[in-house]
């Protein structure tokens, strides 16, 4: 409803941001705020210091290099959806971002925020795992790159440590992608989602069923072995008012199959 008292700073450079984040254990990055402000309103978490990344234009770039599509962590969903480079390089990203909530949220919410909050129902964690993305993390000691599958550690927990900042998400070239979900209402919160990529060996990442995306590499894209490998990997999904554990497990198989089907239809 209303936040607790908090300190606020709006750095104008990445170095300044890192300094502020490193200065206190209770400092947190404020990106789009579409998750963090809600969490703070509910007083479920109350950082001592908010480091507003809003002025860090260097984190808002989108570029294509030999590594692939490079998204600055502060790129908003709307910005990504509008970007020609994304449409050309990896349209699935735009398709999925366009399903997130509503235009107000998409105008503020960032790709970096989506992955760093790692709410189990988020769209981007499973998608980026399936696409083989890598995350660039910068800290006082320098920078490092973490593959998506190793980036997500737990609910609201990622490889970004205290005093560090996600600066970029890099998606390698590719395009045989698929994404499927069951949501609460149109463009609503995901009950279960799955992303698939068939550029190399098939990869399927299922979201909403565990603290982190569950990644499976099925022996084939045929329905039966695919369902079996998903069933084997999704062992104990959470139950809540929208879905029992059993229902989620069932849906996980279904959306995995649909994501794969969609991926195979893209050349």
């Amino acid at each position, binding site marked *: 409803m209303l*936040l607790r008292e908090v300190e606020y*700073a709006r750095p104008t450079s990445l170095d300044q941001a890192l300094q502020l984040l490193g200065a206190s254990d209770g400092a947190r990055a404020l990106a789009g705020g579409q998750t963090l*402000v809600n969490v703070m309103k509910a007083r479920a978490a109350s950082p001592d210091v908010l480091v*507003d990344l809003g002025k860090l234009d260097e984190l808002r770039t989108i570029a294509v290099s030999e590594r692939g599509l490079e998204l600055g962590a502060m790129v908003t969903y709307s910005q990504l959806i509008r970007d020609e480079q994304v449409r050309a390089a990896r349209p699935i990203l735009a398709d999925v971002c366009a399903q997130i909530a*509503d*235009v*107000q*949220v998409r105008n*503020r919410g960032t790709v970096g925020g989506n992955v760093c909050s790692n709410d189990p129902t988020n769209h981007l964690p499973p998608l980026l795992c399936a696409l083989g993305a890598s995350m660039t993390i910068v800290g006082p000691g320098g920078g490092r790159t973490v593959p998506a599958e190793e980036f997500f550690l737990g609910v609201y927990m990622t490889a970004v440590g205290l005093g560090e900042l996600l600066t970029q998400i890099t998606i390698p070239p590719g395009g045989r992608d698929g994404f499927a979900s069951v949501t609460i209402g149109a*463009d609503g919160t995901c009950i279960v989602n799955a992303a698939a990529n068939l550029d190399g060996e098939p990869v399927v990442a299922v979201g909403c069923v565990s603290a982190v995306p569950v990644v499976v590499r099925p022996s084939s894209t045929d329905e039966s072995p695919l369902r079996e490998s998903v069933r084997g990997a999704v062992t104990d999904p959470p139950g809540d008012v929208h879905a029992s554990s059993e229902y989620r497990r069932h849906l996980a198989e279904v959306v995995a199959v649909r994501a794969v089907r969609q991926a195979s239809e893209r050349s």
Partner: protein
Amino acid sequence: MEPVTSAVVTVTVNGETYEREVEARRLLVHLIRDDLDLTGTHVGCDTGSCGACSVIVDGELVKSCMLLAVQADGATIETVEGLAQDGELTPLQQAFSDNHALQCGYCTPGMLMSATYLLRNNPEPTDAEIRKGIQGNICRCTGYVNIVKAIDAAARGEVSA
């Protein structure tokens, strides 16, 4: 740079510039409603779900309950009060009235800002695009039927005098 618990925020709202000292934790919607006395923007929920607080900040449609006032320092903001000029309703506002797109009027300011933003960026939206454009605005009175109708009418210039 030192973090602060409060700051002076300068915002230009509907063409007028205001300066207020606010706590860092104050939400933008409360700056607008309580500190600037612009009560047209409404609060309908506490999870950023309903869109009653929608305003346009630096040209982008946002939910003002999901921004801190301090984040808007230096920004240009448009609220519902800035739509009509000298009591002259915009075609969109008139279309809302013509088509009975409001009953209790509580969601209406946010709905109008979303529709204004939509038509600015997409002057000839389809039915599906209209619905997507107001997907972040909850209405409990109208079932959205007449709201969609009104936005469509405004887009096509079919508005009473």
